[in-house]
């Protein structure tokens, strides 16, 4: 059994919406399938991914490498690189299906209402143009502002993301800026074009721990002040616990458990989530051996029958090998888990 914390009552985190208010989700992914045709065979990266994000919340999409979370993020912008293809499914952004949209419509969305920042900010910035040039270009792409007005807006944004001396940053080349500053520039670029949804793919993994905290805090502030919805893709449970309102745990291209951070981390249902939490060094008492999940993450090439986690699951049953479990609500709430342990007719 995972260790239970002192408080057991569900927390209503500051800034998140009370569940009673049914608003239209800002992002709704249904039944998403993405495959990659490589020379080694077909890799099924995403298999029936599905979750919903409410406006103004920080949503964590958590999982180990290869679980399909990054690809899903790219899919929202229809930017899955070849040889990847979206086979099936719907991605609804404020009610409109991204899958059906034309290139033109997508161009308006990309970098405009939906923005994405990546793990390595150095690689995301063009080395031969100044930071100012790049953000101004994006601003002008998504608005009618002239050169001067765009620059003013850019400087404003730099200020808002906490960059000291915005003018100097504007004139600087990317390699003259630190990692943390570069990431702030990326965030500023996202804001400047009026992003409503920000997809952040491992935004802090490449940064020092102290800078990590700063960036996460910035994202949190932006969520509260601007009402920005943030999809935080990460492998770091600790980050999720600190900053997110709700979280979905991904494994082998699908969601195995989702709900509020409180529910998923402290009332964990799925054995995989339990394994992830137990594997955190923080949860182990000093002197006890480190915990590990036996086996390896599936590579997506060979299909696995039944539940994808069954080869590694300590609570595996016969039915797990044959039938894939459906995602079901736990205790009639929005806490969902896909596991045969919780089938009603057990």
């Amino acid at each position: 059994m995972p260790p239970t914390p002192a408080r057991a009552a569900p927390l209503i985190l500051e800034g998140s919406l009370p569940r009673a208010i049914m608003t239209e989700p800002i992002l709704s992914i249904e039944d998403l399938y993405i495959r990659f045709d490589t020379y080694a065979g077909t890799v099924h990266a995403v298999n029936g991914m599905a979750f919903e994000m409410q406006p103004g919340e920080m949503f964590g999409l958590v999982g180990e490498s290869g679980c399909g979370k990054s690809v899903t993020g790219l899919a929202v912008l229809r930017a899955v690189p070849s040889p990847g293809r979206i086979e099936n499914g719907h991605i609804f952004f404020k009610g409109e299906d991204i899958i059906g949209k034309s290139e033109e419509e997508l161009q308006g969305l990309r970098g405009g209402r939906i923005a994405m920042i990546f793990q390595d900010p150095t690689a995301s910035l063009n080395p031969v143009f100044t930071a100012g040039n790049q953000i101004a270009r994006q601003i002008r792409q998504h608005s009618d502002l002239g050169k001067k007005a765009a620059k003013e807006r850019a400087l404003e944004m730099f200020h808002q993301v906490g960059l000291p001396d915005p003018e100097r940053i504007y004139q600087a080349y990317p390699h003259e800026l630190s990692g943390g500053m570069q990431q702030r520039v990326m965030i500023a670029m996202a804001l400047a074009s009026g992003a409503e949804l920000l997809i952040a793919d491992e935004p802090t993994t490449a940064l020092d721990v102290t800078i990590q905290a700063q960036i996460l805090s910035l994202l949190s502030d932006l969520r509260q002040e601007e009402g920005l919805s943030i999809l935080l893709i990460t492998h770091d449970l600790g980050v999720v616990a600190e900053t997110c309102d709700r979280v979905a745990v991904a494994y082998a291209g699908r969601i195995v458990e989702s709900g509020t951070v409180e529910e998923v981390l402290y009332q964990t249902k799925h054995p995989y989530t339990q394994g992830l939490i137990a594997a955190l060094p923080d949860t182990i008492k000093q002197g006890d051996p480190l915990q590990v999940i036996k086996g390896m993450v599936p590579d997506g090439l060979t299909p696995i029958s039944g539940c994808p986690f069954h080869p590694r699951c300590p609570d595996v049953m016969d039915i797990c090998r044959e039938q894939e479990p459906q995602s079901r609500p736990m205790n009639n709430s929005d806490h969902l888990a896909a596991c045969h342990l919780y089938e009603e007719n057990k």
Partner: protein
Amino acid sequence: MTTAISDLEVSLDEIPERKRISEYRLMWNAFRRDPLALLSIFILLVFILGAIFAPFLTPYPEQGLGDPNILEKFSPPSLQHPLGTDYLGRDVMARILYGGRSSLAIGFLVVFVAVIIGVPLGAISGYYGGWIDNLLMRITDIFLAFPPLLLAIALAAALGSNFINTMIAISFTWWPWYARLVRSQTLSLRERSFIEAARSIGVPNWKIITTHVLPNVMTPVMVQATMDLGSAILIGAAVSFIGLGVQPPTADWGTMISVGRIYFLERPWYAGSAGMAIFLVVLAFNLLGDAVRDAADPRTRRAVDIGR
């Protein structure tokens, strides 16, 4: 439940098996499938074998060597002379075959000498760094400052015009490229941990260079050398064209163009054949070099199996 590390049993059967294929095998496989590569090898074999076995391939070996045949001068291509005859009546096809000896030999020798000199110097310079490196870099800077053909001409003029001197003169201009190439490869290689590891267990420097550094830099050297073979032949022909290389009556494609161009507009087969010979050989080397490079780089290597 989760398992403690002490209870971990990872059997090798659980790890998916991938065959370990050597890098060169992969290269060769990709290479074999490239039609342009095969075409270029074919072209080169034709010319090289033609040059080597010239005396047996032509009914006019003496003319290939230079003997005139005044009665038949300037005859257009016919059955007895498939490429016609030149201003001294010599069979052009024979001249081309024999000319290949001179022109191809220059190319191979020049690149060979350039590699023999440049690669070790570059490796030493890149590996040791310091004043050795500085010295070598200044020297290559100087040589690279000269336009290659001009330096070759000046040297050839100073040394005297014959085959050996031309070869020396051109090699002089070529080796710095290899030294530079190998040096920059060595520099990036030096930072890699396996070099540090070898050093830390006490492997002597010269051994590191020969067994670790050199094999790893050979691939770009091979690519460059293949393409340079074409350029070297071109420059050799240019030097001969100007009159500094091989002297008549020895056959050489460059001199053939130089002599033949005067009457090219009326009787194009002499200069034209020599020009086409050069073009085809250089083209073949360039295609080959491209193919070698594409095969060597895992990113551009054409996939062997595509499961579509």
